[in-house]
């Protein structure tokens, strides 16, 4: 054994011992009379002292020596263990650990002399406990760092991980050979062979299972460090915290243990700092002064669940939302639609921190997002549950092992690919008529999944593979990457299987679309898709992210007047817009399906007849035949007002934008509301009502007596404004928007506003506030002000009542008191 090897052995052993020491000393604090525990602590220190004397590390020896002296006094009962003594002993352990770290890195003991610590140790041995009061207090307790200890843990025998990996490989190969033998036996009618093959089968499975187990470690390996962390963190925050642990024996693959070490430490520290309240606050809430953090680990459905729970104040959903809004992490309308559970999960967003003050320990806004990121990297998930005032539970779901994961076998371009089950949300199979239901927005394919647009990528295109023969069936694999979802269209879906993940060689490291490869049952290699990489390469993920960001930025800049619009091209109009709220769907029809009935172009659509409108005939009467009809398939925007649907023929869908419309310039041209600058280009706004009137006047017959009005819509919520605006525009009104009373009044300057619709909670003083303000202005006092129905109730009843209001405005029948409007609660 070389000197290097001796040192290595010593470091391995001492590190293992120190980890145990930490927890033992803390236990000792609880049960100072436990002789056995004391003896064990004494032995550990003694061993370290003995070995380092032998190896010639004088400083280490001196510290261990004095610590041993102190412990021997405790053991003999001459001294009693006090918190002060515990602190000194823990300090020793830290010093020893630090020196060991230096030894490992530089083979020297490091520059620090630890003179102060040695003095304190000597004093602790020589003077009685009360005399120690005069001594300088131990250096301010600094939370134990999450130090990178050498990769050592408690185990009966040390085996090189490389060897285990090799074993794992061999077993994998054996499994393949076994599969081939089994296949072979089925072709031969031989009883003895069949029986032997069966035995081989069983033994191989058992061997595989056991070799996998050799890589398993109890989660307690990581938990060991936490009691100390909790103690130090709690001290630093001036709180009393107890740590309970349950299920420390739950085993996980070694690589996973490594990966969750930091996230777990962070979560526990976070519980101490944010979760558990201060002592006075706890007393006010009628809770015991001691906060409890409990760790729990258990197996469930082939995964390990790890829960970090505290009995603290819980997550204040309102404050979380407010904070997220403040930091621009979410948009106001998002905040309103968000469920409590979704809102709680905002704490995992980058840049989020609700701590009122930044403490030494946490509150700097980095942290929980890193936790989520790390956990997701190994295929796990993080979820938070909380009852306000009662506590918070953060649950990690972690796969048992990284080496073997369940995966879905998908086929594309004649090749097999594996998709990790952890990223898989659902499978959608479209056949027959539904097969065409992948629509395109601005060239980006999307699929409507339960009312939400899911961006879609075609695996064939992403990987540059040839397309399989077009058949009627479309298979969409819905995937989750980070917090975003997208659909991946594949040619076929086979089954799921357990796969052994193998890395790709150095030559292929640059390929982000694969996370590795595996060997299939037939001995051939198949590639494992990296879901994030695929999403990014196909542009599905980056695009959306960028859009979200720009949308938030414009929102922040413009304040409020945002509107979602669908942009399209039709005839000689290169850029037309309609509010997205009026668009029911986007459809494509083969040209052959377009028929003529009653002098109009129609298609059979959803058990009915959909009239197609050529915009050219409305906007440019007498122009040559519409080019939109010569497209195959024909592109159609379906608009609906609840009773009727109308298909507008367009040449191309350009984009969907969410933007503040800067300048509106009105026009006298029939069928257009006016033009404005949208995304830096001049865009014409389609007057849907006029289009309908031109095409199917009978639909609007009941409204014939109505007159279009200019309506000022004053409402604090952007989301509601968008909704109501669409409805009002549908009824033919011009709409001005304002987000508070002041803006409302400014907007009305010099504009002949027919009516004001105001939200009941309009900032700053509600509906009444605006009403009073208007009454005081002689030029505005005559304008009727109507209170909008409260936003409670369903979207449908809300829309219905807005529609009523809209027609009331049209007939100038504004005597209708808002209170009687249906849907108001």
């Amino acid at each position, binding site marked *: 054994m070389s000197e290097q090897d001796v040192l290595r052995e010593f470091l391995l052993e001492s590190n293992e011992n120190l980890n145990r020491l930490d927890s033992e000393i803390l236990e000792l604090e609880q049960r100072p009379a436990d002789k056995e525990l004391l003896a064990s602590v004494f032995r550990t220190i003694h061993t370290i002292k003995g070995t380092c004397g032998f190896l010639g590390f004088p400083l280490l020896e001196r510290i261990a020596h004095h610590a041993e002296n102190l412990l021997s006094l405790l053991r003999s009962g001459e001294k009693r263990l006090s918190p002060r003594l515990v602190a000194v002993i823990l300090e020793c352990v830290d010093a020893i650990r630090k020196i060991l770290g230096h030894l490992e890195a530089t083979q020297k003991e490091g520059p620090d002399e630890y003179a102060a610590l040695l003095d304190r140790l000597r004093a602790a041995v020589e003077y009685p406990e009360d005399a120690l009061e005069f001594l300088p207090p131990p250096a301010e307790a600094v939370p134990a760092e999450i130090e990178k200890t050498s990769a050592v843990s408690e185990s009966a025998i040390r085996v090189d991980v490389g060897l285990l990996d090799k074993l794992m*490989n*061999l077993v*994998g*190969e054996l499994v*393949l050979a076994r599969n081939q033998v089994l296949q072979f036996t089925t072709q031969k009618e031989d009883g003895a062979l069949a029986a032997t093959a069966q035995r081989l089968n069983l033994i191989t499975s058992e061997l595989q299972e056991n070799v996998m187990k050799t890589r398993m470690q109890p989660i307690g390996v990581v938990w060991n460090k936490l009691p100390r962390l909790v103690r130090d963190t709690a001290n630093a925050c001036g709180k009393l915290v107890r740590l309970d642990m349950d299920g420390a024996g739950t085993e996980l693959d070694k690589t996973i243990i490594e990966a969750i070490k930091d996230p777990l430490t962070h979560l526990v520290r976070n519980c101490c700092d944010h979760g558990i309240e201060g002592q006075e606050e706890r007393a006010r809430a009628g809770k015991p002064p001691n906060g409890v953090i409990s760790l729990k680990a258990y197996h469930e459905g082939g995964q390990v669940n790890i829960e970090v729970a505290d009995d603290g104040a819980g997550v204040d959903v309102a404050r979380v939302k407010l904070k997220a809004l403040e930091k621009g992490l979410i948009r106001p309308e998002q905040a309103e639609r968000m469920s409590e559970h979704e809102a709680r999960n905002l704490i995992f967003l980058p840049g989020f921190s609700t701590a009122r003050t930044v403490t030494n320990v946490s509150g700097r806004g980095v942290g929980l997002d890193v936790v989520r990121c790390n956990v997701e990297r190994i295929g796990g998930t993080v979820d938070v549950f909380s009852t306000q005032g009662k506590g918070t539970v953060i649950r990690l779901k972690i796969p048992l092992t990284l080496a073997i994961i369940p995966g879905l076998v998908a086929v594309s*371009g004649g*090749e097999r690919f594996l998709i990790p089950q952890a990223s898989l949300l659902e499978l959608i199979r479209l056949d027959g008529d539904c097969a065409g239901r992948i629509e395109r927005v601005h060239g980006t394919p999307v699929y409507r999944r339960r009312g939400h647009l899911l961006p879609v990528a075609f695996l064939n295109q992403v*990987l*540059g*593979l040839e397309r399989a023969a077009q058949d009627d069936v479309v298979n969409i694999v819905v995937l989750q990457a980070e917090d975003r979802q997208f659909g991946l269209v594949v040619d076929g879906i086979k089954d799921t299987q357990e796969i052994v993940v*193998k*890395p*790709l*060689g*150095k*030559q*292929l*490291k*640059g*390929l982000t*679309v*694969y996370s590795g*490869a*595996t*060997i299939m049952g037939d*001995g*051939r*290699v*198949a*590639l494992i898709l990296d879901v994030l990489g695929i999403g990014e*390469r196909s542009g599905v993920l980056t695009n959306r992210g960028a859009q979200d960001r720009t949308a938030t930025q414009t929102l922040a800049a413009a304040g409020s007047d945002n509107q979602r619009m669908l942009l399209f091209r039709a005839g000689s109009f290169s850029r037309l817009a309609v509010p997205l709220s009026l668009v029911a769907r986007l459809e494509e029809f083969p040209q052959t399906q377009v028929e003529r009935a009653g002098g109009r172009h129609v298609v059979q659509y959803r058990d009915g007849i959909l009239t197609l409108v050529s915009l050219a005939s409305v906007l440019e009467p007498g122009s040559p035949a519409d080019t939109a009809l010569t497209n195959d398939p024909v592109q159609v925007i379906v608009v609906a007002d609840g009773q009727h649907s109308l298909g507008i023929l367009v040449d191309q869908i350009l984009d969907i934008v969410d933007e503040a419309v800067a300048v509106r310039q009105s026009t006298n041209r029939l069928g257009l509301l006016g033009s404005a600058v949208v995304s830096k280009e001049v865009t014409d706004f389609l007057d849907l009502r006029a289009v309908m009137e031109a095409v199917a006047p009978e639909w609007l017959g009941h409204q014939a007596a109505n007159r279009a009005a200019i309506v000022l819509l004053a409402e604090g919520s952007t989301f509601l404004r968008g909704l109501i605006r669409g409805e009002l525009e549908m009824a033919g009104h011009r709409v001005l928007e304002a987000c508070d009373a002041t803006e409302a009044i400014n907007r009305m300057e010099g504009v002949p506003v027919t009516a004001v619709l105001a939200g009941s909670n309009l900032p700053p003083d509600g509906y009444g506030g605006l009403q009073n303000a208007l009454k005081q202005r002689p030029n505005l006092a005559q304008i009727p002000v109507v209170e909008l129905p409260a936003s409670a109730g369903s979207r449908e009843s809300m829309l219905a009542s807005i529609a009523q209001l809209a027609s009331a405005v049209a007939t100038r029948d504004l005597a209708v008191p808002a209170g009687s409007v249906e849907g108001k609660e």
Partner: protein
Amino acid sequence: MSTVQTTQYATFVVEDLFFGIDVLRVQEVLRYQEMTRIPLAPRVAEGLINLRGQIVAALDMRRRLGLPPRNVERLPMNLVVRTEEGPVSLLVDEIGDVLQLEPADFEPAPDNLTPSARELVRGVYKLKDRLLLVLDPDRTLEVNELLEARPAGSN
């Protein structure tokens, strides 16, 4: 490799070129193996093979040397080379004998080699009837070069 002693070379043929590679760097020689294509990978990376449970990338030497593609009916052989990051297979036309060569016969690479071959060749041994090109395995497997060799924006 720059030892004065005689060195043993495993030899192989690609198109009409006769190559040698230090025998100590060769792990094994295999018949043609079924391969799995790697979409989006550099074109040199022909596919992945299963080498007794280990997944090994196979690089086509013809592509690497800028030579015309192999006749489809002619299946390549695998020359598995050891590297620090595990084995890599080179797809070659034919495998030859292991030759023991004297340093006296060694000369630097001639200038009239194709540029892509010259950068991979350390030198030449003058044999009785033909020339043996000594291949530098590390430069042959150079990743960055391989990845950059891929035309930008191609799939």
